[in-house]
Structures are given as structure tokens and as C-alpha cells.
């Protein structure tokens, strides 16, 4: 089980309570598909992904980005039990979606950069460290059920 200090819990709670899911979720998935184009392989049915402009304007991608971001709410509400909390989603990503777990790290790096752009001076090194730790735990949990 991962240990969280009071300060870390407070940083995460604060970050998510001020989070604009619609904006950040859309931007994160969009950016991921542009910066790491091979991730587009999972979005064949989502419409026009022909170039960066098309991806940025694609409403299906934007909506899905928001959905993914809300997926982090589970970890937020169960910080002492993240591994078990994501067992079901891990099976889904492995058995049904067939997502290479390396992609979780790519998306989490992009999400960090989108948050960095959004928070400005509030995105201190400590906040970055805590956020990246949080994402790393989620990423690990999502990869746990792969076999």
C-alpha cells in the first residue's frame, strides 16, 4: 500500500477540487494523440483524426478525454486503496480495449504538462512531485491485471 503524507493528500484534494475537467480532459487526450500519434490506434471509431487541427476539433475525442479524467476520481476517493479500486478498469483496458500499458505513462506525462500550463506558479515542484506520484500509482494499478 502506498503511503501518503497529510501534505500530499491536501495537494491532491486541492488540485482536483479546482480542476476544470472539461478543459483539461479534452486538452490532455488531444495533446496525447498529437504528440504520440501511435496512440491514435485506439480511436479508430472516433471520427476525423487526420491532422492536429482535426484532432483538436474532434468532439468525440474531447468528450472521451473528459471521461478519462473523471476516471481519476476513483483514485482521489480511495487513495489508500488505489490498486484494488482499479482492478476492474485494469481488466477492461487489458481484455477489452487491448491498450498497451506503456500508453498510460504517455498520457500521464501529457496530463502533467497540461496541468503545468494551467496552474502557472501554483504548479510548484512539490505539487508536481505529488501529482506525478499520484499518477504513477494509478498507472501501476491499471497495469496490474494484464496477463
Amino acid at each position, binding site marked *: 500500500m502506498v503511503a501518503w503524507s497529510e501534505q500530499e493528500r491536501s495537494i491532491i484534494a486541492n488540485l482536483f477540487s479546482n480542476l476544470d475537467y472539461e478543459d483539461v480532459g479534452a486538452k490532455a487526450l488531444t495533446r496525447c494523440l498529437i*504528440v504520440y500519434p501511435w496512440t491514435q490506434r485506439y480511436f479508430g471509431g472516433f471520427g476525423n483524426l487526420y491532422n492536429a487541427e482535426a484532432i*483538436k476539433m474532434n468532439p468525440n475525442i474531447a468528450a472521451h478525454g473528459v471521461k478519462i479524467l473523471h476516471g481519476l476520481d476513483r483514485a482521489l476517493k480511495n487513495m489508500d486503496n488505489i490498486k484494488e479500486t482499479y482492478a476492474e478498469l485494469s481488466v477492461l483496458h487489458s481484455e477489452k480495449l487491448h491498450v498497451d500499458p506503456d500508453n498510460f505513462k504517455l498520457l500521464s506525462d501529457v496530463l502533467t504538462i497540461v496541468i*503545468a500550463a*494551467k*496552474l502557472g506558479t501554483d*504548479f510548484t515542484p512539490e505539487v*508536481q512531485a505529488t501529482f506525478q506520484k499520484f499518477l504513477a500509482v494509478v498507472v501501476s494499478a491499471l497495469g496490474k491485471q494484464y496477463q
Partner: protein
Amino acid sequence: MTVWLLISCCHHRLGLSPKGGDIPQVLMDVYKPTAAASSKPSPDKMSLSVKNKDTVRAFWAKLSPKAADIGADALCRMLVVYPQTKTYFSHWKDLSPGSAPVMMHGAVIMQGVTDAVAKIDNLTDGLDQLSQLHAFTLRVDPANFKVLSHNLMVVMANQFPKDFSPEVHVAMDKFLALVALALSEKYR
């Protein structure tokens, strides 16, 4: 791949089975990729396109006035977020954010990357000496280049949120990966 789809479509139209065994040999011979064609390197495969280079140069020009600050911030974040990287700086008295060694070294690193931008057309040759330094003297595990690159881009996004668009991001990510590759050249 698309060539085979074309053949299959043609065969559907002609009422023939799309299975490979039924395709006339003459068509197979014409459309079989030759050894030469399949080994020809694609010019844009993971290397910097002209557009990538222009994007990197333009963004670098924008951030130049704050280069030293950016380097210091990136280095500081790396030391805080990835504590294992502190092992390379055990000779510093003070590793805390804003400390003199961190500020100075951040600036040194950015000078190196600025140099790489100038040599963007031939990073392997251009960074030869820096590669030797990293390989034989510093012996930094090359995995850490990726870590520092990530932190450089976090700072770029943080300080230039409007300019660090997805297009700039992908160009910078590719560029920094190629810098890392050039720095690793002499390792073994």
C-alpha cells in the same frame, strides 16, 4: 498494406475471391514490394522534419531571454520529483530549489541545449564533445536524459502556456529525444 486492399477491391469488383491464392501471379509479381523499396528509409521517420526544426528554432528564440531561469527550474524540479537524480550531485553542498549550484548548473545545461538548437541539422557531429563528456566523465545513465527532457517541457508549458501548443510540444519532444540520442552516441 494499402496495395493489397486495392487488389482485394479489384477482385471483389471482378467477382473473384479476395484470397491471396486466387490472385493472378502476374499481379503478385507487379505489386510485391522489392527488397530495395522496403529497405529505403523514410525521411521523416522519427527524425526532425523541416517544419519541426523551424518550430523548435522559433520557440527557442521566444524562450531565450529566460533560458537560464528555465534551466534552473527544470533541474530543480528533476531533483525534487525524481530524487534518484540527486545521486549525480552528491558533491554539491546545497541541492535545494534556488540554491547557487542549481541555478548555475541549470544555466550551463541550457547553454548546451541552445548549442544543440544551433546544430539541429547535425546533432550527432555537433554534440560529439558533449557526448564524450557524458560518456567518459559524467557517466550519466542515459535514462535520465528522458527525465530531464520531461522536466524541461513541464517548465516550458508552465512558463509559456499559450506558446507551448501540441505542435510545439511534439517538435520539442522529438528534438530533445534526438539530443539525448546524440549525447548517448559515445557511451558504448
